[in-house]
């Protein structure tokens, strides 16, 4: 960012002729400015941007329309913007700001009430090519046009949140993944039409750097899709399949075998999951511990393995399988401080405990033995 500011110095100097902004080592400015240092004349672009970075987003936008010097500085330097505070004018605001703030890397457009329309997203795609993090959650009014525009305009996207955008189709999403191959974090929660096996296959093919995927409540997701995902995205760390009721053990087995860095898995309401899935997860950990030993020897002890698992309402599971899982992954906890193995609604799993809880449980058990 500082480099960019210096490159644009020539243009800025023209703009700042009255303000006489002095960048490092600009002797011309020095001569003119030897007497009478006033206000902003001497504040370099970097400093102005630092001050703007301390402002809230609304004020930063206001600041960009104060004078040409400020406008140029802010348009060159602003990389993060959040417009979620807009109650009714977000669409127009985006339309007017996208052409100005072309250096944006992070743009949060999560809406309380739907305002954003396709033309705004098209405008973003047209001007903000550096965009890496885009949050369009709850944009009910958007259609596939937006996804097509993003595909062409923002290929550097690493983080995309389109949760709640129920109008997107899987064709458009698949098209997007073909262009946005750097995606690392993708949130499709509630995108029922978009998150299908077809789209997941495309994701598995194209987005090999994917680390986090949220497919919550996408009930069109099936084994085929998740298996394609597992075979394609080996770096997957977080996967949320809450409410994906069609999922069976095959999906989990594929994930266990292919995604060795899996840290967080959500299977809430996946009623078809049985002990087979649990044992496969445990088994793959044991199997791969050999290769992980090397990395831990090198000092990169990443505390690999499942850290968080949600198997609430998976009533087909039995205590022995889940206990085996809990023993295999020391990061899974049932104790109150670090509760990461969530089993709500699984009444037969109350006896499953992590190692730290066992001690407390033993004491508990002796007193309330008859309760069990």
């Amino acid at each position, binding site marked *: 960012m500082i480099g960019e500011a210096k490159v644009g110095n020539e243009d800025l100097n023209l703009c700042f002729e009255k303000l006489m902004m*002095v960048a490092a080592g600009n002797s011309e400015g020095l001569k003119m400015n030897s007497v009478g240092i006033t206000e902003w004349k001497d504040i370099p672009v970097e400093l102005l941007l630092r*001050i703007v970075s301390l402002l809230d987003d609304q004020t930063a936008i206001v600041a960009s329309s104060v004078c040409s010097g400020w406008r140029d500085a802010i348009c060159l330097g602003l990389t993060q913007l959040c417009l979620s505070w807009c109650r009714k004018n977000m669409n127009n605001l985006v339309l007017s700001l996208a052409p100005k703030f072309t250096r944006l890397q992070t743009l949060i457009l999560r809406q309380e009430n739907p305002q954003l329309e396709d033309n705004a997203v098209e405008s973003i795609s047209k001007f903000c090519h550096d965009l890496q993090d885009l949050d369009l959650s709850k944009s009910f009014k958007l259609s596939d046009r937006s996804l097509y525009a993003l595909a062409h305009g923002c290929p550097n996207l690493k983080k995309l949140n389109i949760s709640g955008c129920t109008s997107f189709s899987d064709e458009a999403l698949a098209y997007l993944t073909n262009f946005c191959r750097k995606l690392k974090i993708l949130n499709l929660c509630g995108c029922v039409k978009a998150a299908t096996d077809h789209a997941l296959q495309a994701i598995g093919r194209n987005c090999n750097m994917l680390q986090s995927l949220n497919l919550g409540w996408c009930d069109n997701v099936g084994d085929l899709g998740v298996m394609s995902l597992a075979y394609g995205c080996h770096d997957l760390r977080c996967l949320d399949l809450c409410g994906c009721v069609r999922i069976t053990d095959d999906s989990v087995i594929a994930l266990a075998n292919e995604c060795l860095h899996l840290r967080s898995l959500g299977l809430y309401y996946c009623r078809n999951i049985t002990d087979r899935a649990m044992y496969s997860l445990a088994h793959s950990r044991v199997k791969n511990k050999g290769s992980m030993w090397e990395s831990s020897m090198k000092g990169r002890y990443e505390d690999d393995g499942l850290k968080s698992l949600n198997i609430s309402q998976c009533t087909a599971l039995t205590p022995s399988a889940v206990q085996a899982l809990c023993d295999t992954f020391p990061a899974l906890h049932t104790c109150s401080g670090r509760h990461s193995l969530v089993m709500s609604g699984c009444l037969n799993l109350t006896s499953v405990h992590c190692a730290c809880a066992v001690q407390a449980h033993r004491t508990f058990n002796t007193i309330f033995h008859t309760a069990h």
Partner: protein
Amino acid sequence: MSEVDMAVIKPEMMKSYIWLQTADGSIQQVEQEVAMFCPMICHEVIQKGMGSSKNYAISLPQRVNPAMLSLILDYCRFHQVPGRSNKERKSFDEKFIRMDTKRLCELTSAADSLQLKPLVDLTSRALARIIEGKSPEEIREIFHLPDDLTEEEKLEPLKNTTDDPRIRLLNRLYAKKRKELKERQKLKNIEVEEERVDDRSVDDLLSFINGDNGDSKGIKNSKSKKKNRRRKDQQKNTSANEAIKNHNKEPNGLNQVCCSAEVGQTVWAGVGATSNLHDVEDDIFDNKNELDDGDIDDEIDPALKEKIDREVEDFARRLNSDWPERMQEILSFGHERKPVHFSLNGNGSLRRYANSEQR
């Protein structure tokens, strides 16, 4: 080292000075530990061996004038002492940055050129606090910046990439809105004066209110009503504004105002301030971005401006007269002016009925 040695050496070390030269040519000497608090000076001394004598004085960047240098040295002198508590430092900082904006800007700039990061952070935050919540016009006034953006650029609703006549129409509307915003800003400035006038009679107000609680809402209504009418005549704004007014009314209405003069003053100022801020923010962004059809119906014409001017004068006159008479006038005010209707709330307080956009 023996104590005697230390005693001998110490005073010499204390007396060690660094020579600094500011851009205007003046040279001064500064205690070493104070000056070395600045990374840039530190660098010059250590890397280049400068500053040891008058002839080899360190040339400071030209953004540092003698006045700023002395401020910075005060800062360094305080903070370089290791034994101070965080609380002490914080309270020093708070007092330190209390200066007018001009000097604050100079100080920020000077601190930045000397790479004195803690001071840059402190002053930057202070400047950010000044800028927050202000309109572009106000910011320009405070910092003496040129008003060199064109009408279109300021609002820049859409890039004129096509010659769509609709876009040109919108741009014209925005230019009109911009002018209107300026008018309102001026009126607001007048109104700010009036608010101050009003404060002097808060005791009167309170004694009157204590006698008759219901009317307090009427008073606030009239003030709010005036603001409200001067706002853009849009129903959404109305509802938002009324929500604010109602919100202000509820807690302020009966209990707080009766309590004490101070509370009354803050409450009164609070109503004004909140409305002001909301006005400005909403206006700025609504002005920029509102493309609703409601805008096209919005006839901000000279007639309305005159009306507003007349109201302002009326209000000023009324504020200067006695309260009971004032209340009478305000109450009858509502009946004279057709656009504005008063109706009674469930609890008997006055409520401004609808906005004046029913034209």
